[in-house]
């Protein structure tokens, strides 16, 4: 009964999680369905001689779940390790681990994989794509394959083999890594602000004198002044209460149309 999972089985489970995780994502229990669906083959095998425990495990694993898809592999790995070791007694422990880790792992994982990975690979892909080169998007796609076929199975294996003691070391290491990666992300983003955001000021007539805002003011201060201003304004607006990305989209769309109508900004 206490059969140990092989590397191959863990890999299969990681793929199963990738497939199932958000198929029925919903506002009520989010990834709960995906979590249970991933666990079902394991639970059916593990509790095949104990129907009561099996039903209990089904119930426990159909509770609310939501976390970052990659780091969730660690949680799943720990979960099956705990249940394998403790049997039906371990179901509640596993549920506790799962519930307490999903929040912190979502925070770290979203920053690391979503924000930073997206910034670094995304920026390079964008910068090369607009110049007509496929190299950046090829790199990003390669990274996606690496995550799917190497990283996620690896994380599942780590969670399974090292169990709870991994939490302390892994999250410490991830924070350190996230910190350094943020530095890289911000450097790239600074470059992207200057290269991708195109703003050119027009001419403005004041007391009968025509002033070329771009040439006689902006360019004298620094290159790409307009880009820096627009991003700073958007950043500020996003910090205001009740603002979100969708609202900002419309504000920028309409705002720029007005500024262009007034001739304050022109086609770069």
């Amino acid at each position, binding site marked *: 009964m206490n059969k140990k999972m092989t590397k191959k089985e863990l890999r299969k489970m990681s793929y199963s999680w990738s*497939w199932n*995780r958000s*198929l*029925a*994502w*919903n*506002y*009520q229990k989010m990834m709960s*369905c995906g979590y*249970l*669906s991933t666990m079902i083959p394991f639970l*059916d095998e593990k509790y095949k001689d104990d129907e009561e425990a*099996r039903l209990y495990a*089904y*119930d426990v694993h159909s509770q609310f779940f*939501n976390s970052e*898809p990659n780091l969730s592999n660690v949680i799943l790995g720990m979960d099956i390790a705990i249940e394998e070791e403790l049997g039906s007694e371990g179901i509640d422990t596993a549920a506790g681990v799962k519930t307490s880790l999903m*929040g*912190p792992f*979502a*925070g770290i994982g*979203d920053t690391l994989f*979503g924000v930073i990975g*997206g910034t*670094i690979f*995304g920026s390079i892909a*964008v*910068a090369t*794509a607009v110049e*007509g080169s*496929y190299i950046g*998007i090829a790199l*990003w796609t390669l990274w996606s394959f690496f995550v799917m076929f190497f990283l996620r199975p690896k994380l599942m294996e780590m969670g399974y083999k090292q169990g709870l003691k991994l*939490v302390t070391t*892994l999250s*410490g290491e991830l924070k*350190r890594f996230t*910190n*350094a990666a943020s*530095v*890289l992300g*911000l*450097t*790239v*983003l*600074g*470059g*992207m602000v*200057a290269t991708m*955001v*195109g*703003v050119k000021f027009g001419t403005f007539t004041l007391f009968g004198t025509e002033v070329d805002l771009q040439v006689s003011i902006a360019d004298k201060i620094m290159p790409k002044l307009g880009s820096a201003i627009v991003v700073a304004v*958007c950043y500020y607006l*996003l910090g205001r209460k009740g603002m979100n990305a*969708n609202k900002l989209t419309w504000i*920028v769309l309409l705002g*720029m149309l007005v500024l262009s*109508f007034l001739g304050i900004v*022109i*086609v770069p």
Partner: protein
Amino acid sequence: MELQVWQILLLTAWAGLSIVDQMTFNLGANGIIQTGIFTGIIIGNPILGLLVGGTLQSYALGIGAYGGASVPNWPAAAIIVTALAGSLDNVAATIAIVGIPVAALTVQLDVFGRFANVVFQHRADKYAKIGNGKQVVLSNRLGLSSWLISRMLPVFIALLVGPALIGAITNYMPQWLVSGFTIVSKVFPAVGFAILLRYLPTKKCIPYLILGFALAAWFQAPIIAISVIGLVAAIIIYKQSDVPAVAVDISADGEDYDE
């Protein structure tokens, strides 16, 4: 640009594949640039798709579906803009007239999908109670239907009525509005960047943001060069930082959940 029936069908199918990939493996079919390239191939102009995809991706750089948030549907926009623009000259206007509104308005369909799946959640819960694993897995898969409808329908309709609509709009649009939309399409990456800056520890690490900006603004450094310099800074920071003694508080409730 007029589209053939087979083109419309293939592009609609890709819209479905794209959302399934986003909800599952994340291998790239959900990518805005990849979607642009695929559309480009279908209409016989892959480079156009690459450029449209790259431009739209720059709008979305900071936008992820964290915690199941609904975000603008840029992959759909990439299909529609690439297919309808036809040529490079029309890209900026098509992005502003069709791309941005489609991406922003179809957000509601994502909300629909996330609501509709509650039905399948209840179905799964019912079968979980009696321990019927097969039906639980099936309920989970039924969730696919909501996702497919939410993404394939808008793309299909837009590709069907789009060409006539675009033609009518561009014919009657005054010049100042055309240039206005061109300006919008150039400024728009600022939105994505600002969102990203809100997620990153911008205030703490502002010198690096300035460094990257300065390298590009004054020295016209290519983005790969800036990445390498950023990598050097990151490695130094990583090597100098100590491993924190106490890690996350595992009892804490996080606010950021994922899709």
